[in-house]
């Protein structure tokens, strides 16, 4: 085996080794060296993710058996088009976040860079793994890094929001283990492909137990994804943490969505025999309610970061809708929208950080304050991002929402989805224009402070904002790849296929 065969595990190994290296004295005493190493590592990760992207497109699904143990006995990493796309997204997001933080946010506490790297390792691992227990382990890796990152820099508000976040997720982890134990008890395996095969062969007295395990898993993933009844932790957590961390967390809810897609959309999907689509009757109303409640909270938001957190909840609802529609076309639209909404929300969080810095005591609240020293460029970026988040042409939000609306063909579904998605867009338009007017136009006098954003912070935001028009210009390429991802996802993967690919 040459190096290119091991490519699949690199997105997990690189952040791990870099994080460990950062803890050694020659790096841990010098922030400048840490910044250079992490930025270099992230550029490398973007390159590797892109190479993997092309490789999956040319050669189909890649399977990496750890230690060369074949599938049901060992743990496998599965790189199909969807997971590779997500790894690519996390690498680009990680790069932007670290560039932004290198301007000074990493100084407010210790170990910022190692924690970000461990978090990226957990995120990439969760996307790539093909084993349910391994998914749990990577969830814990990304969670424990996120616990520490969330209160990085300290402060009463952060500690208080973090207490909610940590304890809720600890309870979630316990439920995750209960669900895994239940599923292992009836299915006798934790490999995703093997589980999907065996679900069809369950005897009738095992059905109910398996069903309860699967729905418990939905609750756990729903907690991570901020699905409706368990979304209350999100606005406070995202709004109180520092800007780069909030931006990185934009992908954390998507890890939950991704897992729901894999487990409840596919494993318990159309081919699951008696248990086919057990989660859909639950997902459908929850998804619609998540959009509705998210949109109402958007209107009620009093500061830019809270508003942006609520937009994350709306996007989670929209993605859940595409999962519950359950067609290849809807999945394609969902994957496209997922890429767009993650990048747009992350960029907005970064921008909110700069706005907060330049407005002094008023922070990012919608109140009258002194004007910002760099109001011009901030306002322009804000307008661009707002257009993207609302879903107006010409940016990718419009394409994403149009694809979703187009994919809903049944009249009974369209009657619910169309008004909700268009209505949430209208509400976002109202809320974001109100936010823009009060942040940039309701000013009293000139700001004399010299607090200006660092060029690298603008570069980081520009990197993310630049992707939005690119996703429209190369819209055909992106949506073709999203379709490939959706087809591979919906086709599922049996154990036999998995082992054939592994050879």
């Amino acid at each position, binding site marked *: 085996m040459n190096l290119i065969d091991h490519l699949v595990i690199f997105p997990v190994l690189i952040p791990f080794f870099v994080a460990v290296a950062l803890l050694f004295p020659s790096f841990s005493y010098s922030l400048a060296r840490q910044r250079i190493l992490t930025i270099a590592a992230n550029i490398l990760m973007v390159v590797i993710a892109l190479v993997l992207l092309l490789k999956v497109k040319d050669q189909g699904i890649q399977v990496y058996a750890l230690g060369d143990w074949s599938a049901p006995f060992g743990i496998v990493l599965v790189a199909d088009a969807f997971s590779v796309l997500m790894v690519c997204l996390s690498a680009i997001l990680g790069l932007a976040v670290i560039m932004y933080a290198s301007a000074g946010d990493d100084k407010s506490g210790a170990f910022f860079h190692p924690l970000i790297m461990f978090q990226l390792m957990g995120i990439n691992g969760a996307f790539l793994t093909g084993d349910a*227990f391994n998914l749990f*382990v990577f969830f*814990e890796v990304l969670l*424990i890094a996120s*616990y*520490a990152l969330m*209160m990085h820099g*300290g402060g*009463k508000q952060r*500690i*208080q929001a*973090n*207490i*909610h976040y*940590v*304890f809720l997720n*600890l*309870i979630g*982890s*316990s439920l995750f*283990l*209960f669900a*895994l*134990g*239940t599923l*292992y*008890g009836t299915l006798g395996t*934790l490999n995703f492909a093997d589980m999907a095969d065996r679900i069809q062969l369950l005897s009738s007295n095992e059905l109910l137990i398996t069903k309860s395990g699967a729905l418990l898993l939905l609750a756990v993933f729903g907690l991570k994804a901020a699905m409706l009844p368990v979304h209350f932790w999100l606005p406070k957590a995202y709004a109180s943490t520092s800007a780069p961390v909030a931006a990185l967390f934009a992908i954390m809810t998507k890890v939950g969505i991704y897992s729901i897609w894999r487990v409840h959309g596919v494993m318990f999907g159309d081919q699951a025999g008696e248990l086919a689509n057990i989660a859909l009757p639950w997902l459908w109303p929850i998804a619609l309610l998540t959009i509705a409640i998210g949109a109402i909270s958007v209107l009620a938001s009093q500061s830019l970061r809270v508003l942006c957190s609520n937009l994350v909840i709306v996007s989670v609802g929209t993605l859940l809708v595409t999962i519950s529609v359950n067609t290849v076309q809807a999945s394609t639209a969902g994957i496209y929208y997922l890429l767009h909404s993650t990048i747009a929300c992350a960029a907005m969080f970064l921008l909110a950080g700069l706005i907060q810095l330049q407005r002094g005591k008023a922070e990012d609240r919608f109140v009258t304050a002194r004007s910002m020293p760099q109001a011009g460029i901030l306002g322009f970026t804000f307008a661009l991002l707002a257009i993207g988040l609302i879903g107006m042409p010409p940016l990718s939000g419009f394409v994403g929402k149009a694809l979703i609306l187009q994919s809903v063909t049944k009249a009974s579904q369209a009657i619910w989805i169309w008004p909700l998605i268009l209505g949430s867009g209208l509400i976002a338009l109202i809320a974001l224009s109100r936010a823009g007017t009060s942040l940039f136009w309701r000013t009293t006098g000139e700001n004399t402070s010299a607090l200006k954003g660092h060029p690298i912070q603008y570069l980081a935001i520009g990197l993310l904002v630049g992707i939005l028009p690119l996703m429209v210009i190369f819209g055909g390429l992106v949506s073709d790849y999203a379709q490939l991802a959706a087809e591979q996802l919906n086709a599922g993967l049996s154990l036999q296929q998995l082992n054939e690919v592994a050879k």
Partner: protein
Amino acid sequence: MELVYAVCVGFMSACGIFLMLRGHTFTLVIGLTLLSYAVNLFLFASGGLTIGAPSVLNGSENYADPLPQALVLTAIVIGFAMTAFAVILAMRGRSDLGNDHVDGTEPFDRLAAEEKS
């Protein structure tokens, strides 16, 4: 044996959930610990309970499933780390916020206020 085992796991999780529903970080940590004990036992039993059988195949028909044991080991290690983090966070919250309520402020207790006055 299965009945006793199931009752124990169920009782322990019930205690854990009861403690977690209280609003203070101290009881929350204790509740979480109990719940994670219950989880570990539950995972251990998920491969079926067997007595006096080797955990690895040695040609005999009767053997205990080795995988849940590996899962439990991993779960114990992770649970231990998470509990340690939760304890430190609870202490930090107690010192920064001045009380150990999960919301950062004690809710208004009408009865206690009336007794005082």
